[in-house]
């Protein structure tokens, strides 16, 4: 079920502002790809273009091609709603639905896709997804409590459970740990390690150690200056990127010598 992604010559705009320019890269199935780079270089923008979440911002659009196992995500006969059902997303700030219980949060996507299902099947999905997100043991006795009653780290894992409940083919994560404490961060990193056996994962992070720990491939983005579009500088296997980058800018950024 995990699929590969091929991005070619992607230009991304917010209205008249070109935020990202000429991005080309590929993501292997069942791997973790980390997008790193300074703030404002377009990491989130690139990520959101992969599941067509970019265009929900008024005036925002993208040019270029994004292929999911060879199928054009931006094809004229493609419904963005279906793309988002296939490519799940986890946001920077945990955003469980506050009016829903823990259980209903997990089932939210599933109910959209297939309406009512037998209760037993629903319960199986809840347990499987929460176990998949390493949250089951902590919440199994209070599935009917509001999602907002959990700690930040638990909320983020609930969001991951919600995303994997619909068995997506790709999982996008935008700085999923940046609002979390170190222990919750470790819990999520462990989880990513497990999830990559089944999903293709693309993760944005501003934390170099995290990129080094969890990813197989690392992509470094940079921008020439304020108001200039961000570009992909270099992409390579993570060990290579961190030990032996080909670009000076990459080395400067990774070694913290970034100006």
């Amino acid at each position: 079920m995990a699929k590969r992604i091929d991005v070619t010559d992607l230009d991304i705009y917010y209205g008249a502002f070109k935020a990202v320019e000429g991005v080309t890269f590929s993501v292997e199935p069942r791997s973790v790809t980390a997008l790193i780079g300074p703030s404002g270089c377009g990491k989130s923008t690139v990520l959101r273009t992969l599941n067509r979440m970019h265009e929900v911002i008024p005036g925002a659009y993208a040019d270029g091609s994004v292929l999911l196992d060879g199928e054009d995500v931006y094809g004229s006969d493609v419904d963005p709603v279906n793309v988002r059902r296939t490519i799940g997303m986890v946001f920077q700030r945990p955003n469980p639905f506050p009016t829903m219980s823990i259980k209903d949060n997990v089932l939210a996507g599933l109910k959209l896709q297939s309406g009512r299902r037998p209760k037993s099947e629903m319960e199986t999905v809840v347990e499987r997804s929460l176990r998949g997100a390493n949250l089951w043991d902590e919440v199994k006795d209070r599935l009917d409590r509001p999602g907002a009653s959990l700690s930040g780290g638990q909320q983020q894992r609930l969001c991951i459970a919600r995303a994997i409940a619909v068995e997506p083919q790709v999982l996008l994560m935008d700085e999923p740990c940046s609002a979390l404490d170190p222990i919750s961060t470790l819990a999520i990193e462990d989880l990513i390690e497990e999830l990559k056996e089944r999903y293709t994962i693309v993760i944005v992070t501003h934390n170099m150690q995290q990129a080094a720990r969890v990813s197989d491939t690392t992509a470094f983005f940079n921008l020439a200056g304020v108001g200039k579009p961000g570009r992909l500088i270099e992409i390579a296997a993570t060990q290579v990127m961190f030990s032996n980058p080909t670009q000076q800018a990459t080395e400067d950024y990774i070694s913290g010598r970034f100006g």
Partner: protein
Amino acid sequence: MSTTLEPPGTPAPPVPHPGIKGAAVRRGDRLFVGLSRGAGVLILVTMAAIAVFLIWKSIPGLQANTANFFTTAEWFPDQKPSVFGIAALTFGTLMTAGIAMLLAVPVGVGIALFIAHYASRRLASTLGFVTDLLAAVPSIIFGMWGIQYLTPHLVGLGQWLNDYLGFIPLFANEAGIYSRSILNAGIVLAIMILPTISAITREVFVQTPRAHIEAALALGATRWEMVRMAIFPFSRPGMISASMLGLGRALGETIAVALMLSATYDINIHITQPGGITFASNIALKWNEAGTIGLSALVASGLVLFVITLAVNMAARLVIARRAEFSGAN
């Protein structure tokens, strides 16, 4: 700037530390607490004063009344013996307000939703402006427009209801006269409370956090599914209070209803026929010609209206509080 010129090593003169003991007197805080507490008390006192006035002034009438105040559908307080009761008022008020709510809530929410999340920015601001303008039209204008212009245009609706739904007594109209009916008054009320409902719901709709909207969209929700998943749950308390404000206005609306309805004092369940009367319009119509007991009787009916509106508001609050835990306010 002498301090910056001191040679390094010279210890800075010790600043006396305030310590942690002692209750600090913060003037602004105390002023604010005092003001808000005072405002709260003032509102309670005003409410109590109104209630006391209503009760006090209604006692003579209620004592003189020889009929059951709640179940009688007649209004002859100044006769001997005095006979009056609010049954017709309760019926007419709840029916007109109910019809108004039935029409205005869905339409108002629909307009608000369209303005907040579907229309282009240009169209949205125009529409918002127009609905706000509607709220500024005085009710006497609505009343005149309703009786002169709208009533003739609603005959067709009344006939249609009679032809197709006439088997339901509510819509039957054997008389064939369709003016000055509870339905027409309800429709005018609906138009009057529409801007209140749509303006407030629009405000809460646009406050829905971006994070909730994106969470729904990223799960593959269509626009309408997103509205149901993220916007409606978040806005529920606001939608309820908007509706209650509208209901409050519909229950208390006086002059437009007085113009729209015939001044007969009866219960007519055929809502497309002439007839019906409400608390507020009855008071307005009868006040000037009422005697001592008549005035007291009208005040007593006002007391009931006061209690009904209070009850409606408290019920709304209960609904909101019941699921506060899930409200997203945390």
